[in-house]
């Protein structure tokens, strides 16, 4: 498992910490996959990081950067359409985040993700306002896939290619019409001669198959 990737639930221990105890009374009442939600950081980890940063722990600061840099850059690319600008904005955001955390501005450590998101959004909006632009709502240009570095992107593309090859041709077509051309299920159904329910079910199944397969293979690789 690569550093910085918290996936609670692995192949060996699909239920994460919940499986550590044998007492059924302590088992979660809801399905583990709903309960855990693959959180970025557990509440205890968030509290620990925030405390350590307040005490000047540079390793804790580095951990924040490692965990949130991709997300901030992804958000910035999404809204500015500019990878270089996104990098600068991500850096600016992290500087503000660390400064705020050092100053104890975060009262509830369990809201760390939301806190960082809030700062990132403000930094990006300020930039856009200074350029006289509005946050865009146009479809995202996938040529600027954010978050992955070049090697990560190539890895993911190769795995996606393999996963798509294993799909049924009609499922691939449904995914294409949905994700590329933005067709609604009803439009796809009438074009392909299928019912709307069948289109929805096939689309959902195909998306799930591809994303789960790629995620599983990425975890195998890491």
């Amino acid at each position: 498992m690569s550093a910085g990737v918290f996936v609670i639930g692995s192949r060996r221990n699909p239920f994460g910490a919940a499986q550590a105890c044998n007492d059924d009374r302590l088992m979660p009442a809801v399905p583990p996959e709903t309960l855990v939600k693959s959180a970025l950081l557990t509440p205890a980890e968030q509290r620990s990081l925030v405390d350590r940063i307040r005490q000047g722990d540079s390793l804790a600061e580095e951990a924040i950067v490692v965990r949130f840099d991709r997300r901030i850059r992804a958000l910035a690319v999404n809204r500015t359409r500019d990878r270089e600008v996104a990098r600068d904005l991500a850096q600016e955001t992290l500087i503000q985040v660390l400064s705020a955390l050092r100053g104890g501005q975060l009262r509830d450590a369990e809201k760390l993700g939301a806190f960082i998101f809030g700062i990132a959004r403000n930094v990006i909006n300020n930039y856009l306002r200074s350029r006289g632009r509005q946050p865009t709502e146009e479809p995202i240009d996938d040529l600027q896939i954010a978050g992955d570095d070049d090697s990560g992107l190539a890895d993911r593309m190769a795995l996606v290619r393999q996963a798509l090859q294993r799909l049924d041709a009609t499922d691939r077509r449904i995914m294409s019409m949905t994700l590329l051309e933005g067709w609604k299920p009803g439009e796809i159904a009438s074009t392909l001669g299928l019912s709307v329910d069948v289109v929805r079910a096939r689309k959902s199944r195909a998306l799930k198959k591809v994303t789960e397969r790629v995620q599983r293979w990425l975890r195998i690789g890491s």
Partner: protein
Amino acid sequence: MTCEEITRNEIMERYLLGRLEQPVRDAFDEHLFECEACFERLQTLRAVRRELAATAGAFGAERERAEAERATRGWIWKWALVPAFATLIIVSVIVWPRVLRSPAQPPASPAGQPAGGSATASPGQTSSGQASSGQAPSGQAQPSQATSGQAPPGQTSSGLSASASSTNVTLAELGRFEAPPFTPGSLRGSQDAAATRFREGMTRYRRGDYRGAIAGLRAAVRLDPEAAHATFFLGICHVLSGQRDEGIRALRQTIQLGDSPFLEEAHFYLAKALLQQNDPAAARQELMRAIELKGSLEQQARQLLAALDRTQARRP
């Protein structure tokens, strides 16, 4: 916003298409800061869109090419008619009357019949398998079939010799294969002991020292029994070193690990190893499974299956 809501309301797809209202988009963006699974899933969906767009582009180009070819054929056909008509006219006006006037001739003996449809397929038949492009995942092998167009002379990419498509081929010949190429992926995160031993083994593998690679790969598998890349290449090395039983065991282990990037290759090369062991029935099953996966080796698996069927049909 919860993951369930995101799935139920197709939030992610609408986000990619830019169809979310701002408050919902903000809520989703915020969720991504708190949920690793959704963030990774979104990255994968972006990659899916990109790949679908690339394929759609190729399809569009293909469609244009097909239309251009049809137009060209139409053009050629049109102009081919001109000399045909001219010939017809000449025959009608000049030759045919002379034929009618000449004395009866005995019929000419028929020309030698052409040979029956040769059972030999065109040599140099290439596989439709495409070498995977892009870099391998970190610390992970690039599973790749023998690359198309690079087969040794007289041999196809699937290892079928030019005559293998004929009926005169043994199972051992069908089972022969070259080492699948390996491209080391870029490294991310820390290198654990299993990854280190894997790389040691694959360094030898790339030099063609398959027997020498076994120790490193075996160690990698011991350290990480679920490393499908390690079990796969261990199986390949065993088979290429003449240790078929061990190779078959390792390839079966790869398959038992379930859905991995090596599943299809494991079925395909296991089939090859079983052919070398003179077990066509089991090889057949593995080829069927490889075909069912509809991956990049599907075409090669179909060709090999057809060749196997021809070989079996020849037997008394």
